């Protein structure tokens, strides 16, 4: 559905459009409720980030890295959120299809983009387990000094980051609706984003051409904002870029999902068989 068609829909739907925020929040809440109870999702968002956080922090303590422990704990936490989004969006939509849920969700009058948005935002929020776990792990095991230079900016950055990752998940989710095996893509997407966004190593260590990729990925700006808010500096410009990239994802997601829904109905890919 193009932006023009979306606005026409909004005009024609009238009061029903007032229920759109409620539909997103409802999807977010029930997705969060289900995923938070999934042992697999909790493992993905806890175990892997803790391993990466441990390696980076042990390396720092051995004197091989110069940045504070908090820098690495935050990076590992965001890595965990991204893993949860990548696996969660792919897994959640494949699972919805497997469970026969994709058809009832497509069949509701609410725009599919809002239904998917609730699911991907819920998945990204579950990823906050990672952030909490890596910070706690760094403090307990490695004695990381958890002092946030600007707590308000940090919380705002974390919320914006989760929304940005959820919106990036929405763009991916469009392909997951169309192709039954698209969740296999999720494995291929995990590591490149970690690297390109500077979650594992500072961006300055990567080749110049990767920076262009990094600039269009919201997590690059999100982690920059969170790290600056935590360690000191002005996070707001990075945060602004994160919001701009997120809005671009939302636009792209709206465009993609409308077309993908039509293609899925044409190719009969809403069911598992």
């Amino acid at each position, binding site marked *: 559905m193009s932006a023009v068609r979306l606005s026409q829909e909004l005009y024609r739907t009238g009061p029903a459009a007032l229920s759109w925020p409620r539909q997103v929040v409802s999807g977010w809440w029930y997705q969060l409720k289900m995923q938070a109870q999934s042992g697999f999702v909790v493992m993905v968002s806890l175990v892997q980030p803790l391993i990466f956080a441990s390696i980076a922090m042990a390396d720092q303590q051995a004197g091989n890295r110069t940045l504070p422990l908090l820098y690495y704990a935050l990076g590992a936490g965001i890595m965990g959120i991204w893993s949860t989004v990548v696996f969660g969006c792919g897994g959640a939509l494949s699972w919805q299809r497997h469970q026969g*849920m994709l058809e009832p969700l*497509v069949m509701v009058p609410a725009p599919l983009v809002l239904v998917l948005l609730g699911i991907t935002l819920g998945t990204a929020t579950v990823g906050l387990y990672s952030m909490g776990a890596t910070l706690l792990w760094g403090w307990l095991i490695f004695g990381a000094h958890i002092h946030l230079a600007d707590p308000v900016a940090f919380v705002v950055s974390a919320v914006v980051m989760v929304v940005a990752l959820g919106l990036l998940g929405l763009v991916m989710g469009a392909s997951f609706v169309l192709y039954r095996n698209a969740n296999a893509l999720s494995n291929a997407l995990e590591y490149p984003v970690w690297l390109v966004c500077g979650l594992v190593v500072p961006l300055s260590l990567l080749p110049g051409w990767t920076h262009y990729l990094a600039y269009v990925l919201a997590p690059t700006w999100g982690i920059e904002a969170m790290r600056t808010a935590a360690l000191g500096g002005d996070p707001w410009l990075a945060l602004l870029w994160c919001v701009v990239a997120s809005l671009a994802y939302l636009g792209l997601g709206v465009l993609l999902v409308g077309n993908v829904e039509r293609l899925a109905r044409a190719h009969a890919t809403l069911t598992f068989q």
Partner: protein
Amino acid sequence: MPPAALPSGEPAIEVADLRRTYRTNTGTLRRRRLEIEAVRGVSLRVGAGELFGLLGPNGAGKTTTIRVLCTLLLPTSGRVEVLGMDVVERARDVRRQIGYVFGGDRGLYDRLSALDNLRYFADLYALDPRRQRRRIEEVLEMVGLKGRDKERVEGFSRGMRQRLHLARGLLHDPPVLFFDEPTIGVDPVGAREVRQVVEELARAGKTILLTTHYMFEADSLCDRIAVISKGQIVAEGTPQQLKAGVTARTVVEIEAYGVPEQTIGRIRDLPEVDSVTTEVREQAQLLTVQAREGSQLTGRLLQLLEGVRVERIAAREPTLEDAYVALVTA
């Protein structure tokens, strides 16, 4: 939600020359494109307030037809309208006016309670938040799940799941309902309860399109029935009209032990025989032979069954099931 206005005499559901083809690839090294024509020119009209049955064997095209009507599939060609709205062009408007209830275990969030499942879909159907609680209570009461609504769905029996499917389909009080084999796999008591709800909905003036494998269900519930076979409608009428099509026939049931395949083949080859179906009942076989009336069929059958232990042989009145078998095996 009030029903959409429909000029009197207009059908609530209208399908004209619907075709739906699935394209798939096969082969590993030599990829070959396959086209499967699931629905081949189906046309039907369902009047407002009518309970219409769609009968057919597996793979006949029933579910494909329902999915097109429910806006889940695009037709390859043909015109499909619900309450005068085209399902391709006005999919979202159609979705507001229809409910889809399908059979089986899937299609519910197992990790959520029944109440949460309904609350989520109530939001997706944009039910007024002030009305939501009362409406959820009403549908829970209607399907007999009141008191169990706070339990997680993963602990529900097949029958309870089916009733929850029903409750979800009714949440927004749609004027048109599609039931795709709603009693499949449900125990007899549960199935009877589902049928009672369908009857109540029909009495309340809902337009219902129902698919089922159970002939007695179609016979007792439906105002009219269409039989679909190999993607085409092969008969349409009231249950009485369809039965009348086979009243000029003789149906003979034979309960026997160890009937050889060749003997069944010889019975099938008799000139007056239209169809022979076999069913295993514990140790015995039940052969149902449909033939044109007037023939001395029983005697000829006993001749062919010489040497076989025949427990029972009897001619009986044709049923809707016989009419169905005759139509789909023709």
